[in-house]
């Protein structure tokens, strides 16, 4: 039984119900009602999406196929450092930080694409 969708959908429905209770019985304002109902709706939709994904393809650990186990990613490190530097540059330290940060993001994303392609190639070679 694969029922990963259930807690997400049920939890989302519960939040929407509490938001409705707040609006109908306790005169909850628009912003708080939207926050609660919005979170509930997102959870509900996520649950339904997980349900659809479960129907479309088998559970990851049920597949009789080799799986790529990622052990390291230098590119991710560069992207994280780039995002931090760029944000600090844009909000506090100015262009001297922003542009190098943006460059690191581009470099890191390139590295990620390369890692992804290498992983795909490896999987293709191992597939029976």
């Amino acid at each position, binding site marked *: *039984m694969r*029922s*990963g*969708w*259930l*807690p*997400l959908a*049920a*939890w989302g429905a*519960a*939040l929407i119900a*509490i*938001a409705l*209770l*707040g609006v109908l*019985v*306790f*005169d*909850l*304002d628009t*912003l*708080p009602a939207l*926050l*609660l109902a919005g*979170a*509930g709706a*997102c*959870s509900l939709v996520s649950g339904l999406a*997980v349900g659809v*994904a479960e129907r479309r393809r088998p*559970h*990851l*650990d*049920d597949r009789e196929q080799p*799986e790529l*186990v*990622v*052990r*390291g*990613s*230098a590119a*991710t*490190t560069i*992207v*994280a*450092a780039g*995002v*931090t530097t760029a*944000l*600090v540059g844009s*909000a*506090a*330290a100015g262009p001297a930080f922003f542009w190098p940060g943006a460059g690191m993001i581009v470099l890191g994303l390139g590295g*990620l694409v390369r*890692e992804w392609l290498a992983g795909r190639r490896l999987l293709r070679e191992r597939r029976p």
Partner: protein
Amino acid sequence: MIAALLWSTDHKVVALRSAVFSAFFFMAAGVAALVMRTELAEPGLQVVSREGYAELFTMHGSTMIFLVVIPVALGACLYLVPLQVGTTQISGARWAHGASLLLGLGGLVMWSGWLTREGPGRAGWYAYDPLANAPETPGNGMDLWVCGVLLVTVGSIVTAVCVLATLLRRRAPGMTLLRLPVFSWTALATCLLVIFSFPSLVVAFGLLLADRHGAHVLGPVSYQHLFWFYGHPAVYVMFFPFVGMVAEAASILSGRRFFGYRVFVIALLGFTALSISAWGHHMFTTGSVPTKLFALTSTALIVPAGIEYFDIVATLWNGAVRFGVPMLFVFGFLLQFVIGGLTGIWVASPVLDVQAQDSYFVVAHFHYTLFAGSMFGLFAGIYLWWPKVTGRFLSERLGRLHFGLLVLGTNLTFLPQFALGQDGMARRLADYPRATGWTTLNALSTVGSFVIAVALVVFVLAVVRSALAPRTAAADAWGGGMTLEWWTSSPPPPHNFDSLPPVRSYAPLYDLRRREEDDVPAPEGPEVLRA
């Protein structure tokens, strides 16, 4: 080694890296707390200025919440969930790796404010509008603080998505949702809260940053709604995983399956739904929220909380309880969190909350929940899983000393603060008149904070001693493990499992032991072998 630390995507390394970051920030926040307590030990300004005090309480609070307790809670989920559900890796390993880096980098950005001329963030951990606006809190240090919190929060959301995806999509064959270990259920509840409430803080702080740079888009009440929609669930993010740790420790060290598993799961989901619906009680004194609704949702929290307490206590009941250090911390958690929980009913009542608002009563309340509760749950988990993570045990003797000092220090620090709050001492004060008569209670609280510091030094000694000891822990280090992490070696190999036992309940190892004791042949279905 350095390469592994910098770009490993192994969920265990990523989680430990986050723990190391958090440990450093914990020490920094602890030093800030000691300086504050020293300042308050007697009337007058002896150690820091009022401005400096504002920086200290802001950095202490924000570091403990954004950089210590939440990342440690999520880090524990990151380490344990793949092992408990019997999978080789976390879903979205690169994302989890990047998220843990954002934690460390975001923390550095927050603390780099000390290097600026105006100093770091000093508008409280909630950075209320308009106090946190550029005219009221000028300078780059505050901007850096906001950026740091944004980075860390995005990192937390990404980590939670990875853990939730692992729970929903990577469970071992046979592991239905109602066969998830108790800790994994608390991880699932934690992830729901992070994913669906933390974006609200990203929006709030994004708008705050825009506001500080000239775009006036926020009103005080709107900001508070956005902030507390994050802020109150965050309390439970800092609570649920530690309840899970306590529940696992209680079960393993009493030799009993967890009592009332299904009721616990239902209560946990109800708890989660109510906890995200209770944020308005932080805003009772604004007069802008329907007090009846938020008093109802806040007070109703006691029902699922009571069920969880009952389940943990009932698990211990009639069990063969082993009073090792993890169990001591279980009892410490159970007894002390009651104080934090019951004083929560006080602030959930609009009438009483008006009295307690912004007083030391609130400070004592949330420290009893987060320090006397969650931190004791965390230490129960650390002592329980340390042999699994390192292959070594922590010293029993130092552990008992650590526990004793921590109980003494915690209660000496925070119990007097209830009385101070009742007597009208406001929080965030750097000084108070001698005529108030608050000196003795404040001095006691200060002594207690130093006892806590000594307790933590003892813990560090235990860690160092353990690191120098040989690896002796077996796969099932306590001899009573229930869940899959106790099946694999201590420490686990990079791929987590060489084999898995059949999973036919939430306690598969307990089932195996019972079958062996009853001499029942193993059920059909070979072990699942993985390369």
